[in-house]
């Protein structure tokens, strides 16, 4: 049925030559798992576009509604958490796919003449993808979105001469607010998609004009070519399924939480950027004093200029890795720096003391027994009894607290603290919490 319909259309539209152009493209050295990264990236991009369109069904880009609409998607619409999860994890996956794609091209020397233009367009596509990540991050309008974007925009302010102007242009005014969210939305869902679609078409157009690079190994390359369809397509499809499976599993198992609604007056919030910006975030911590502002714009500028010019800086025509030790060494060095920074940053983030569940139960007991009607803890409660904000500094002794909770007067004669009916577990939880109340 489908094939008869196809023939019917083919008799009219003469699709055969088109089919040949699209499917019989020769892959030098034959189909290979090495070439799947570009297709994986393209697949993830399509997934982002699709899930993004669906998110737009309910999303409203305004400061007074954005958070509610995302909350609605996440918690009320059937399957909304999954669609949002796919979009969130898809964004991370696309960065990984681009990274692997670039590594493969870099390692195989596929950016060299005559493929310089394809590489340059690819680097521009990477920049567009990062811009997608940055603009999309603000849209949920939660605390993380607001403060991370605040930091990101302020970094742009360090650019000499035009910094202030750029910051205002990005925000749409003096402060991050209604005009910021609407322009970020427009950039995210209209300007960037058009740009990237043109970029991808150009990238693929160049690929078809120049042809795939094939293996760097001369003997393998000369062994003959294979048509793109069906074996390479099959490999690509299998990888797409794997990628989709991973993204879907992540969306299902690790729900991407919505933080509290953005509160511009809450300066205590510490935002964390997306992991693909983390290495840079960490790097900035090492830029001393006056170098800091310079590092925020100069390093990315050097990085992108270097990437764009790579095919012209590395003029060695040989694609074989064994004769490209210096370039590959530089690339490896760069990766080591990036991954070290990323891992330090992740370690620091996860070193933020996670609360022991027992401590959380202890905190709940403080509320349950109304301890704060007599004690003050970090500004909350009444000073009838001692302020407990830093009580563990004065009394670090666990046994003393356990005894004190069982029978206050036994260790603190004359105290008018009542005995509370606490069981062993509760005594333990409460003491664990009390011992966390210390400075530093």
């Amino acid at each position, binding site marked *: 049925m489908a094939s008869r319909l196809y023939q019917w259309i083919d008799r009219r539209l003469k699709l055969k030559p088109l089919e040949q152009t699209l499917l019989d493209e020769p892959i030098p050295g034959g189909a290979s798992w090495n070439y799947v990264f570009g297709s994986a990236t393209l697949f993830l991009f399509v997934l982002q576009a699709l899930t993004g369109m669906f998110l737009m069904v309910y999303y409203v880009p305004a400061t007074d509604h954005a958070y509610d609409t995302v*909350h609605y998607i996440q918690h009320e*619409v059937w399957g909304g958490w999954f669609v949002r999860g796919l979009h969130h994890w898809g964004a991370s996956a696309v960065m990984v796919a681009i990274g692997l794609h670039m590594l493969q091209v870099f390692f195989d020397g596929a950016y060299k003449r005559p493929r310089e233009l394809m590489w340059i367009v690819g680097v521009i596509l990477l920049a567009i993808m990062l811009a997608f990540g940055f603009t999309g991050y603000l849209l949920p309008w939660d605390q993380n979105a607001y403060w991370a974007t605040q930091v990101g925009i302020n970094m742009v302010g360090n650019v000499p001469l035009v910094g202030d102007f750029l910051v205002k242009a990005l925000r749409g005014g003096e402060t991050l607010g209604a005009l910021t969210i609407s322009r970020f939305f427009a950039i995210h869902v209209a300007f960037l998609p058009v740009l990237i679609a043109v970029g991808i078409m150009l990238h693929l157009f160049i690929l078809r004009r120049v042809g795939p690079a094939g293996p760097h190994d001369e003997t393998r390359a000369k062994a003959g070519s294979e048509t793109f369809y069906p*074996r390479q397509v099959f490999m690509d*499809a299998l990888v797409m399924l794997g990628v989709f499976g991973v993204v879907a599993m992540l969306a299902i198992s690790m729900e991407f939480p919505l933080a509290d609604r953005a509160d511009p007056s809450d300066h205590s919030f510490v935002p964390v950027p997306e992991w693909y910006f983390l290495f840079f975030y960490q790097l900035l911590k090492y830029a001393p004093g006056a170098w800091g502002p310079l590092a925020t714009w100069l390093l990315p500028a050097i990085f992108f200029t270097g990437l764009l010019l790579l095919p012209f800086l590395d003029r060695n025509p040989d694609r074989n890795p064994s004769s490209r030790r210096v370039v590959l060494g530089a690339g490896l060095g760069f990766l080591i720096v990036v991954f070290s920074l990323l891992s330090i940053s992740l370690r620091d983030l996860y070193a933020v003391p996670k609360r022991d569940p027992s401590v959380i139960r202890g905190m709940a007991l403080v509320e349950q027994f109304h301890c704060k009607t007599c004690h003050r803890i970090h500004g909350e409660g009444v000073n009838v009894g001692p302020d407990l904000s830093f009580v563990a500094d004065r009394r670090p002794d666990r046994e003393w607290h356990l005894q004190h909770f069982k029978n206050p007067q036994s260790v603190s004669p004359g105290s008018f603290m009542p005995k509370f009916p606490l069981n062993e577990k509760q005594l333990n939880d409460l003491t664990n919490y009390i011992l966390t109340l210390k400075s530093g």
Partner: protein
Amino acid sequence: MEDGLSTPVGTRRSFFVKTTVFISSLIGISLAVPLIGYVIAPALQRRNKEWVSLGKADALPIGEPKAMDYTMTEKDGWQESHATKGVWAVKQPNGEVTVFSPICPHLGCGYRWDQQDRLFKCPCHGSVYDIQGTVKAGPAPRPLDTLPSKIENGDLLVQYEEFKSGLPQKVEL
């Protein structure tokens, strides 16, 4: 085929082709089901009706219609709005309370109680109803619409509903 250009043939080829089609369909279906459900689900969801308190039922005079206003929260997707609704409550001698929708079943105007004639009168097209809501005059196709109501702990509770106008029977909107 050009020289040096190879391509799988026979069963090997059809294996690649069929697997590719299978994989694409698998991805397509696993995406289509949640995405379509995501768009359609809110459309199929019935508005959930809440009982709203109009106040103490004791305070109502027996046999005298009383216009009562109350504020209800309407949930429209992600948006919550507060709307003030007015209804007519009539307490019967046996203590039961009938609550009328404030909208004339003829074409949707607001009617009022004429104390002198002891009739509900609609100013738009002259429909007239008695205190039971029965049509006494005018073009109205059906009696006044009653709303679900109950008395709990002395509070008069009502569910707000709207009905299509102009029909001989009550059809909920």
